[in-house]
Every structure is written in C-alpha cells, then in structure tokens.
C-alpha cells in the first residue's frame, strides 16, 4: 500500500493523461475538472465482501420485485406494507409505466447502492440509486492505471480483478436486448458524467449515441448510421426519465428520443434502467426496503438501513421535531448531496424555521441519525489524514444478479465533513476486494 502512495504522483499524471474528468456547472459556466484520486484504496476482505454480496443481491432482488409489483398487481400496497401515499406521491412514479413489463422483467439493471461502514465495522445502506447511478468507470480506469504504475503492489496483494465491468455490463445489455445493436444514449458532452458515458461505450463495444442519432419509425428504434438505419435492441440511457421522450414527458425536452416510450411499452426495445424506477429509490421509499425484503423474499434483511424516521408518521414526526439538532434531514426530491441539512449546523432560529417546514411538508423529508462512519486514510500533501468516506456498490441484474467486486469509494476532502459527492468537491478511491 505504501508503494501505491509513493506512486500517487505518477497515477494522477496517468489519470490526467486519460482525461478522467467530471463536468460541473458553476455560475452558469460548464467546466471539466479532474476527479481527485487518492491512491490508498479501500480494502474489503473476502469475508466482508461475502456478506455485502449476499446483502446487496438480496436488496436489489427485492427492489426489482417491488417495481414489478408497483407497476403490476400492487399487492404490497393492498397488503398495507407500503402506504399508498408513499408509493404513488413521489415524482419518481410514472403512471405511463403502469402495466408495462420490461424485457426479461428486469427494472433495475444497474443499481448503485450507497453504503457507509460504522466504526464497529457494520455496514449501513444510506441510499439506493436505481435510475442512472454513475461512477463505476472511475475505479475501473483507476485500477488499470494503478496496476501499471505499481505492479508490485498487485503482485503482493490478492486483489480480485475488477476490470470485467465492461463485460458484465455488456452481458446485461445482451440479455435484455430485443434484437438490434446496443446503444449508450448520452445527453452530450456537457453532462457531468460524460467521461463515463463515452468510456463505457468503449468498454462494452456499444455505440455511443446522442440527440438526433436515434429515431423511431414503425414502432422500432433506429440508429442513424452513415451506412443506413440500424435497429436498436437495448438502450443504456444516461438521461433522466423526464427528458427521455418529449411525446410522453417534458414536451420541451430537446435531448430525448421522440416516441421511444411507445416502442418500450410494446416490448420492442429495452431501456436500461427502466423508466419509473424513481418510485423505488425515492428517499422516502428507502425506509420500506427492509420490509420489502421480508415481504417478497421471506428473509431477514442482511444489510441494515441507517436509522431513519419519516415525519409523515406522527410518531416519527414528533421524534424528529424533538431531536432535530442531532439528526440529518434529507429532501427526498434532491440528489448529489444537495438538500441535506445537518441539524447541528443550524442556528436556533433556522432550526425553528426548519421545524415549521417539516410540519408543513412532512412527506418531503426523511430524517436519519448521524452515523459516525469510519474514517479512511487519505494522502494530503504527503501526509496521511483521516476523512469520511462512503462506498457506492454496483449491482448488475441480467441473467443473474451479481455485485461488481469493487465499487466507487468517495471521500470528503474537508476534515469533519460528511459530504463526499464529487459535485461538492469530494475525491475518489479504488475499492479492493481481497480474494481471501
């Protein structure tokens, strides 16, 4: 590990060479930044990964069953396990998807599950991302470059190879493909995750398409290739539901594929991930995921949620209002580290104002105990410092549901900060899974 730290400069030079960047809008200007990388990896032992693996597969399987049920028979609602108010009130639920079963019945093909490790070693799920979770490409390319810069490190440590992500993703695309080419559909160069879109296209051998490259004719999606139209069988779309099809969602969207929802509803193209998945990764629905595991699988959840309260419920609301100063409150409609308020950071007046807001809009928020999660060592100016870090694990559902033996470890670059998002200045590490 020290060898890797010694090669940090070379590794970062390699990351710059390969343009490992993310985009950010600041003051209305688009800028690309190198994603700060820390050479010291997060290390997960084989035994630890075994638990994570089983827990993540269990969780994503339950979430896929929930989506199938929610857009199908709605048994979980009828049985009162998930209240109707929560199931249908969020913006993630799309009535247009009601009754639609995607190819092979898979809704969340690529799930990004955010976890933190407590100081006692136990893992907690913080968030499920079932729409278009990003980040796998960063540890994927970083691993290749780290191996190049410090081969001895990898000779001396039994690290499970993570460079198969492209093949796994390709397998998922092929499995649900309805006939035709695989496409990764990007909103374009100015998207924050454009590096990832283009890199994954290269890694999977899929075509990278953008606005205008895809069109619908005869209830079929075609790619406008220079040698003539090519039928498209699977679209890994890196564009939000609301922009996906202007004839079905936001009519002012200029970046979508007009008519694609009709083709999808007819089962003639696979959309990865399925539209409407936001109904299951709403921060409010998160509260119910352990109950889904019990309901659909008849099993006890292997992975725990962080202790969470729903102000929607009177009992929880009272607790939240009485203890706001020690809780973290999240706006269920926000993502990327936005809409997160730590009660301890609020002035007395702001705390009171926020309580009023929670009373007025209880469905809008969830509150969680602040987990004092494990700090990880990070190199800063040649010194090791300890920083908060989370882990985004990637679960791929195709012929089987499997966990990529790696993940994106994001860390805060500020001492005492819990915010690790890249859009908020966080950095990333590789995630090693040991083979023993």
């Amino acid at each position, binding site marked *: 590990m020290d060898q890797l730290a010694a090669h940090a400069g070379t590794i970062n030079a390699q990351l*710059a*060479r*390969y*343009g490992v960047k993310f985009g950010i809008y600041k003051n209305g200007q688009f800028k690309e930044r190198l994603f700060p990388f820390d050479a010291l990896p997060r290390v997960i032992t084989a035994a630890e990964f075994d638990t994570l693996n089983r827990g993540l597969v269990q969780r994503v399987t339950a979430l896929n069953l929930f989506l199938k049920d929610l857009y199908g028979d709605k048994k979980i609602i009828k049985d009162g396990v998930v209240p109707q108010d929560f199931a249908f009130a969020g913006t993630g639920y799309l009535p247009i998807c009601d009754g639609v079963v995607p190819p092979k019945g898979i809704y969340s093909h690529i799930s990004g599950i955010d976890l933190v490790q407590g100081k006692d070693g136990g893992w907690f799920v913080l968030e499920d991302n079932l729409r278009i979770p990003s980040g796998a490409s960063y540890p994927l*390319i970083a691993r290749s470059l780290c191996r190049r810069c410090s081969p001895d490190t990898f000779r001396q440590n039994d690290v499970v190879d993570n460079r198969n992500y492209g093949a796994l993703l390709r397998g998922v695309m092929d499995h649900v493909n309805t006939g035709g*080419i695989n496409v990764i559909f990007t909103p*374009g*160069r100015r998207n924050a995750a*454009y590096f990832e879109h*283009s*890199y994954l*296209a*290269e890694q999977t051998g*899929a*075509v*990278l*398409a*953008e606005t*205008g*490259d895809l069109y619908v004719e005869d209830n079929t999606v075609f*790619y*406008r*290739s*220079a*040698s003539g139209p*090519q039928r498209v069988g699977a679209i890994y779309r890196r564009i939000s539901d609301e922009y996906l099809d202007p004839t079905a969602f936001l009519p002012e969207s200029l970046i979508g594929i007009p008519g694609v929802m009709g083709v999808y509803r007819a089962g003639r193209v696979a959309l990865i991930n399925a539209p409407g998945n936001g109904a299951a990764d709403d921060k409010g629905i998160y509260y119910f995921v352990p109950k889904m595991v019990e309901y659909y699988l008849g099993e006890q959840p292997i992975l725990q949620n962080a202790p969470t309260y729903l102000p929607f419920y009177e009992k929880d609301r009272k607790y939240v209002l009485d203890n706001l100063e020690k809780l973290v409150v999240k706006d269920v409609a926000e993502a990327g580290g936005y809409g997160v308020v730590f009660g301890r950071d609020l002035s007395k007046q702001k705390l009171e104002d926020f309580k009023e807001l929670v009373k007025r809009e209880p469905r809008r928020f969830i509150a969680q105990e602040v987990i004092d999660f494990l700090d990880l060592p990070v190199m800063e100016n040649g010194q090791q410092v300890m920083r908060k870090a989370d882990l985004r694990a990637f679960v791929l559902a195709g012929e089987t549901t499997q966990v990529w033996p790696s993940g994106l470890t994001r860390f805060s670059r500020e001492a005492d900060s819990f915010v690790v998002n890249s859009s908020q200045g966080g950095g990333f590490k590789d995630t090693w899974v040991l083979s023993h």
Partner: protein
Amino acid sequence: MGTVTLTKHNRLFWLGRYLERAYAGITATRPLFEADTDGREGDYADYCRKVGIPDTYENTADFVRRFYFDDNDPNSIASALGYAYDNAIVLRETLSTDTLAYVQMAISAMELAAASAAPGVELQWVLDDIMAFRGSCEETIEEESSRNIIKTGASLERVDLCLRLGAPESTCEKEFGRLFNRLYKTALQPDRDRLNLLVDAVLDKTAPTPDAAVMVQALEGLFPGM
C-alpha cells in the same frame, strides 16, 4: 463504415483539420519564434494577412505569446488544440481511450509550454503528441473510412495553408495528391464542381492555373455542411 453517424463524420473531419492547424501553425511560424528568441522583429503581420487572421498583435513577442498560448484568442494554436479536443472527446468509442489520450497530452504539453522558460522544448512535445495521435489512429480505428476522414481533414488544412502561404507548386501538388487519394477512401460527399476545379487545376497542365485565392475558396467549400 458501420456504426458511425454523419455527425461523427463531421467531427472526425474537424478533428483532423484542427490538429493539423496546430501542427502546421507551429511549424510555419517557427521563423517568427526564432526571431523572438533573437530579440528581432519578424513579419508576423504578413503571416496574419496570408492566413486570414486579424492582426491584433503589438509586436513579435506579443504574437508569439498570444498566437501560441492564449486560449482566449480564437486563432491561437492553444485554441486549435482546444477545438480538436472538443471534437475528439465525443469520439472516444471510435478513437479509443488510448488514442484520445494523445490529444489530451498535446494540450497538457501546450499548457506546460505556456508556463515554461524554454517553450520550444515543450512545443516539440506538442508536435510529437500529434504525430503519436496519427500513428495511434492507424492502429486503433477499425473503420478505414473513419481513419481517412481524419486524414482528409488534415490534408485539406495543409493544402489550404500551402496555398495561402504561397508554397512551391511542387509542394502544393504533392499535398493535393494526398488529399485526393484520401478523399476517395471516405464516404464524404464533396461538391463536384469545386472538386473538378481543383482536380483540373492540379492535373491539367494545359490549362492556366487558377489564382490561389480561387482554389482556397473551392477548398473551403469542398464539403458543404462541414
């Protein structure tokens, strides 16, 4: 040709043009760079006039500083590399990450040159990276048409500069030969009248050679819509 769209054709073409603009810009202005090193004034105004860029420079030193390194100057070498990158970054799956890296490296070398006390050394790296990019294209781009579109863009830019700078007839003929040879290996659709004018000008020794400005105009309009 397979899975390349017309939009990508356009990008490949301009990627080739902008990289050549950077490459040829550095090599063609070397005498001005040398003059600045010697503390002499060079005829940068003549260069600006010939290549059709506004002469907004105060003296040779200002020309060298801004024409090479100022990415706010749309006619600078740094800007040409930036435009090349803008086209390359949206072609990763066609070019490959390894090939794309050479464009990034040329930009990084340019940035180092701008901050260096001996920029000539770093500029050599810019040229090396562009050449490495071309070699890498040969190895990694599977579709012959795509490879030749990049080369066609580069060739067109080179011929354009040769005509504008009044290069010897033999040099112009050689570069035209390369352009025609590459053009026919692509799926690009040139304007037939303009192409005929250029082909006649180069190959028909019995007819009077058109004025260079007429040929430049034909070159610039050779691919309508690009």
